[in-house]
């Protein structure tokens, strides 16, 4: 890389410095393939639908992105989201909508706090810690379900409007997502908290020596991740309209994939939320593409896995962040 930059190398380096550009190119290429396969499919309605389904994925991927910045991961996010959606929906008939939403978010934050406690004080690897709390959460949810089996569940109209409705062709969930994304992107670059995440992820010892109290940051981070997951769950139940015990779980691995494709390093210190959003869009378009090809379910999963691998490989080559 030190010799005279040839035109190709300059392009590559430019892409390496602005990793979101190759991702957007990939997204446009995928949409192009889709339009080529089924001319006329790419219209306003399709875009609205794609965005609608990409938003919960992108929000759940925010949990992964933020925790990955510190070198962690949040595998309990999907369970936290499911719990808050299910608890909220079953509490609505008893408590009324506003109170039910608050009650629904409490377990999600609690899961986040437990994660934060384990990671910050006991130094448990976040992967293990969050897998474990996810397991506990699932068990608690199943026990909880037996107590409320008689009350039934209601998805509030407001959430259904937010999840599925559209205004002037645009999905209403953008109302929630755009401010959310702006705040996350602003916070990760411009606030002290955001910079501490990058600092902890790049070099924990160095940040400790420079006076960062890592336990405060980690505790706040995982609690925040739980809260985001809870909100995602509420939004997603508005979209799906049928609360179940495994509502958000299918989004877990795609949310990790979205963050990784979006260029956030799983080892911490690199990446950001903007890439993750594009990653979530890429995965959603990819899903449509694979459905359109009418492949057997098995072949779809194989292709999905291979594409994640291919995109990450190319991406790591471009940004040269392997070591």
């Amino acid at each position, binding site marked *: 890389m030190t010799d005279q930059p040839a035109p190709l190398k300059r392009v590559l380096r430019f892409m390496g410095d602005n990793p979101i550009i190759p991702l957007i190119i990939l997204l446009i290429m995928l949409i192009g393939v889709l339009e080529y396969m089924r001319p006329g499919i790419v219209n306003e309605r399709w875009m609205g639908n794609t965005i609608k389904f990409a938003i919960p994925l992108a929000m759940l991927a925010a949990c992964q992105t933020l925790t990955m910045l510190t070198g962690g991961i949040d595998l309990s996010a999907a369970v936290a989201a499911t719990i808050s959606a299910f608890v909220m929906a079953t509490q609505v008939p008893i408590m009324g909508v506003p109170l039910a939403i608050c009650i629904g978010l409490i377990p999600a934050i609690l899961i986040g706090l437990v994660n934060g406690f384990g990671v910050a004080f*006991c130094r448990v690897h976040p992967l*293990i810690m969050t897998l*474990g709390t996810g397991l506990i959460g699932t068990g608690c949810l199943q026990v909880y379900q037996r107590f409320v089996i008689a009350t039934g569940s209601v998805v509030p109209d407001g959430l259904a409007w937010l999840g599925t409705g559209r205004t002037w062709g645009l999905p209403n969930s953008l109302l929630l997502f755009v401010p959310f994304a702006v705040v996350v992107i602003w916070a990760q670059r411009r606030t002290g908290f955001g910079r501490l995440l990058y600092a902890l992820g790049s070099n924990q010892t160095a940040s400790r020596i420079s006076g960062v109290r890592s336990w405060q940051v980690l505790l706040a981070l995982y609690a925040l991740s739980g809260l985001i997951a809870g909100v995602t769950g509420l939004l997603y139940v508005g979209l799906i309209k049928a609360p179940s015990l495994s509502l958000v779980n299918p989004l877990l691995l795609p949310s990790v*994939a979205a963050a990784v494709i979006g260029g956030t390093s799983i080892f911490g210190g690199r990446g950001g939320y903007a890439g993750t959003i594009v990653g979530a869009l890429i995965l959603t378009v990819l899903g449509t593409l694979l459905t359109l090809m009418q492949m057997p379910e098995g072949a779809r*999963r*194989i292709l999905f896995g291979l594409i994640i691998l291919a995109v990450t490989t190319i991406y790591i080559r471009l940004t040269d962040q392997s070591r």
Partner: protein
Amino acid sequence: MSRIVARHGWTLGLLAILVLLFAFTKVIQPNFGPTGLDSLSRATLPFAFATAAMAIVVIAGGIDLSVASMMAVAGVTTAVMMDGAGTGMTLFTVVAVLVIGLGMGAINGALIVVTRVPDIVVTLAMLFVWEGVALLILKAPGGAATPWLREIIVGPFLVPWLPKSFVFLVVCLAVVWIPLRRSRLGLSIYAIGSDELAAYRSGIAIGRTRIIAYALCGLFAAMGGLTLTMSTGNGEPIPGPYLMASVAAVVLGGVVLGGGKGALLGPIIAVFILRLVRMDLTLMSVDPNVTTIVEGTIMVVVVMIGGVLAMRGRRQ
């Protein structure tokens, strides 16, 4: 003697817990005997193989999230090939499935080495791929296992207190692990897990060793899938809860995530502890969902204590 205790303190502690748990089981279920042991041992088999598979890559400094999916591939392949098969075909199937396992693991390892993508991401992607392969082989649960092969893991061996399945497990693990542990290759696996740069500088072929570690992981996963089909009698394309359980048992068994430390004995004892806890709770007629909570809590508390102990150790 005290050196042995100091070196294997963690394993001995686990063994003590296991003995206590057995005593506890005998107390709450006075007629707990050979039958109970047999069913415990048989239920533990696939978990034990999954744990062995996970342990070997964790020792090599990696992680393999696709263990459960590889087991599913091995399981359905067994079920499809053994459906109505004779003796010759059955033996061929066993060999073929083990080779397929080695192959799947080697593919995982090779992809990690060639693409230089973090192992978590590669095996996450391969989790989807192997799951897809299993679904292509068999869409819904089906197939069959050769009856005489199933007999291998049912019933006691020589004495009533020794289940055949336990002997089967020990033999399978020992055949792979003991020669490995005594060879240069085994040392290399520990070396790359402990310090990759130092291993590289001492002339270890990092890439090759890593691929072999993942291939062995695939081999154990294939054994797991094989025993799964042997014990249930049909193939199941959807992966079971083995990923989670294997990570828990590996951590509980004293293998440090990050690599270079631990062995196979600890995780295997740990997996028996986790299964026995589950069985005890069932015997006490606790709601199975509460059992899940208890299991998860045990796992989390154990890794928390482990983390605190590791931190203390570093300070001293």
